[in-house]
């Protein structure tokens, strides 16, 4: 069974660039950064984050429902609802047994854990919420999605850190190719901006410390980049086999033509300097898509704005993709959405091939002189037949999606 015919029929986004696909696309194509000082982090060494604006879970999901959901699950349900609607699917009439859910997440619900830990230390165990586990466990992302939409097919959460969202989409494609279900809600979600988690990231030296100009902190490939800006949010895609899409008269927005996965087996946080794992994942994705490096017109890079990632990734892209595709990192606008990044960026890649427009890399003023790839600094109209979306996680987990025009 070939993976080549996996269609994307629905899209949903909740990110610091907006709630909904169109507001996101407008903000990202406009190169609008979303990073700002975060009042929650006022006591932290790094106080910059990218937050979903005006997110009212009680309004979007109902007060009772929202109360029992950690923020990462709230994001996913809102994004999934948009994706299902945009796919022209109706949960009242679909065959739920043939609907799978594969979502990626790095951390689960650290917000709930930290809140309840405080209650434990201040009031004792009898005051801990009975909802702690159902709210914070990572798998609940998929479980709650099943409950919300009546999806009773294969149901799981994948964890590959910052590659989780992409790994989820690749895994979902595999399920469809194996006929384990007919529709998959695939994507990722993350809400890791908590004082403890951010202190951890800060201690690792991973975050930008541009406190005097937070809006400009996330600047992938820029000569003055100094780390990533943590973001939050969710991206969900509806995937179906292309035959089924045609049979129900739905429109394929794009195709997931290929997926490549590998491990660096090098270091817990530092990418392999030669990028051999990334190269391997790229070549796998291309082989899966029946494509050659020269076919790639665009790359939505991992492009986190860290000194090391951007340099190493650019080197691999230069070496492997002879056709000099137009590269961008949408993390300049959205920040780094961690486990959701791969899914959010898959959505942007779909929009790029669908609309023939490559979004710019926000905040890129001066390309790092050691970086020798073509990076978009303005929204660039271009017909793209095949795009790659890269996501690399701590632990050396690499996921590359090949997104083709429908």
């Amino acid at each position, binding site marked *: 069974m070939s993976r080549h015919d996996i269609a994307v029929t629905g899209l949903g986004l909740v990110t610091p660039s907006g709630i909904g696909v169109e507001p996101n696309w407008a903000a990202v194509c406009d190169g609008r950064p979303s990073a700002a000082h975060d009042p929650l982090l006022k006591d932290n060494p790094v106080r910059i984050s990218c937050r979903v604006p005006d997110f009212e879970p*009680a309004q979007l999901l109902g*007060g*009772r429902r*929202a*109360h029992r959901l950690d923020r990462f699950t709230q994001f996913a349900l809102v994004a999934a609802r948009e994706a299902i609607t945009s796919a022209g699917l109706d949960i009242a009439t679909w065959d739920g047994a043939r609907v799978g859910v594969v979502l990626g997440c790095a951390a689960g619900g650290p917000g709930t854990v930290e809140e309840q830990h405080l209650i434990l230390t201040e009031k004792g165990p*009898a*005051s801990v*919420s*009975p*909802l702690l586990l159902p709210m914070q466990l990572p798998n609940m992302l998929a479980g709650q999605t099943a409950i919300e939409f009546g999806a009773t097919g294969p149901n799981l959460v994948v964890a590959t850190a910052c590659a989780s969202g992409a790994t989820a989409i690749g895994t979902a494609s595999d399920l469809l190719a194996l006929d384990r279900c007919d529709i998959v809600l695939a994507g990722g979600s993350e809400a890791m901006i908590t004082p403890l988690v951010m202190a951890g990231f800060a201690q690792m030296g991973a975050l930008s410390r541009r406190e005097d100009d937070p809006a400009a902190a996330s600047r992938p490939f820029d000569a003055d980049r100094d780390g990533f800006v943590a973001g939050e949010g969710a991206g969900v895609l509806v995937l179906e086999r292309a035959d089924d899409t045609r049979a129900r008269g739905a429109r394929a927005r794009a195709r997931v033509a290929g997926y490549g996965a590998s491990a660096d087996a090098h270091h817990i946080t530092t990418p392999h300097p030669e990028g051999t794992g990334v190269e391997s994942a790229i070549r796998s994705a291309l082989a899966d898509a029946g494509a050659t490096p020269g076919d790639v017109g665009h790359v939505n890079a991992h492009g986190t704005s860290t000194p090391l990632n951007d340099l190493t990734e650019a080197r691999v892209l230069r070496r492997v993709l002879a056709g000099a595709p137009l590269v961008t990192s949408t993390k300049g606008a959205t920040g780094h959405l961690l486990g959701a990044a791969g899914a959010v960026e898959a959505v942007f890649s779909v929009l790029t091939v669908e609309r023939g427009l490559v979004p710019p890399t926000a905040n890129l003023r001066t390309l790092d002189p050691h970086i020798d790839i073509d990076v978009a600094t303005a929204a660039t109209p271009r017909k793209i037949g095949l795009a790659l979306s890269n996501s690399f996680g701590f632990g050396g987990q690499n996921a590359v999606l090949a997104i083709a025009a429908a």
Partner: protein
Amino acid sequence: MFENLKEILVLKLKMPPEHIVPEATKEDIELDSLAAVELSVILGERGITISDDELLEAATVGEMAKLIESRSTNL
């Protein structure tokens, strides 16, 4: 006490106020075992000792309020 219970259910457990009437059953207000524990914890913080099991034995919200009242120490 019914009004106190309703206030807790609405403000702390985020239940829709229009559903909370004395005749409402647990199912009517979606008070599952987890919510019963939450309620028990909140009441405990207000000096009222009553277990989640006991709360779940009440057939209606009105009966639950009466049960809670019978456990209240006059503060």
